[in-house]
């Protein structure tokens, strides 16, 4: 019944697999069963502070108040927009310093 069919050769897996890919799966995916040894992965500082940032699922991380990607321009178009606005303001400011009187103040 569960005889496996032929599979293509592994891609980026096995011994050389990216640690993030492995942690993402073994810590954040897979079936959760409360064993006899109860350990709450959310209590682990290393995981919450360092690894959670990298491998947390969006919903779980939001639950924990982690939403850095929403303000990371690389990951969110809204943040990219915000950054552009900030950068524009900064550039206007710089231009005003260099060339006073020629740059109108930004309309609010």
């Amino acid at each position, binding site marked *: *019944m*569960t005889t*496996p*069919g*032929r*599979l*293509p050769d*592994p*891609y*980026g*897996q096995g*011994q050389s*697999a*990216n*640690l*993030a*890919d*492995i*942690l*993402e*799966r*073994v*810590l954040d*995916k*897979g*079936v*959760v*069963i409360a*064993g*006899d*040894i*109860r*350990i709450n*992965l959310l*209590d*682990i*500082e*290393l*995981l919450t502070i*360092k*690894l959670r*940032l*990298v*491998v*947390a*699922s*969006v919903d779980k991380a939001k639950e924990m108040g982690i939403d850095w*990607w929403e303000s990371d321009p*690389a*990951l969110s*178009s809204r943040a*990219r927009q915000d950054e*552009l606005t900030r*950068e524009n303001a900064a*550039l206007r400011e*710089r*231009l005003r*310093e*260099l*060339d006073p009187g020629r740059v109108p103040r930004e309309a609010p």
Partner: protein
Amino acid sequence: MTALRYVYAVCRPFDTPLQAQLTGVSGDPPRLLAHGDLVAVVSRVPEADFNEEALHDHLEDLDWLTGTARAHQQVVDALTAVTTPLPLRLATVFRDDSGVRLMLEERAEAFGCTLDRLDGRVEWGMKVYVEGPEQAAEPARPEPKPASGRDYLRQRRRQSRADDDLWSRAEEFATDLHRTLSDRADDARLHAPQNPRLSGAAGRNVLNAAYLVRRDASEEFVERVDRTKDDAPGIRVELTGPWAAYSFAGEEEKNAGEGS
């Protein structure tokens, strides 16, 4: 020394032996613990390392975590070669065999349903990266030093426009590819993009997706990804797998088709 039971996965009974030299998270080879029509894949781990307190401390240690995660994945990987395992979360630990049996007994129905759903399928991971704009956007000539504030502003505008183009191309490319692959998969999940600080991968990860694909459809799936790889300058596609169906092992199916 007391030994606890570390459980890697739950499977249907299977005949093919696991590779002989396979070792589990603490060096003990994994064995099969059968109960009803289910099998738990279990190895012994020292109580001193896997009681609540020790485990808590160990998990704060990135080296320990890395070794344990890799060992866990290696066992699950070996199972994937011979059957369709239902992989469990890292560090699922019981006091003794009877605790494991009890767990199999209590969750037999749910395990059965999930195993039927996953039977004969594996997971493929696909990530889309945007190479740094400095590599991708205007590789040829470096910008001259701005002579004035206005030049500086022009340069920044030009750079920003090139970045925007790349971003919108990447978004479109990723959306198209995700749609194409979802059509060839039984199910798909979108995961949070990975941070390069841990993955060590170059560029920005803009799409991180997983696909549940039949084994006999996997070759075609992989070829489909391969064909798109050179299509888009500045954009990189990375395929990983075959994995056990980690991303599809949850019993809830609410997320099915999410993000398509």
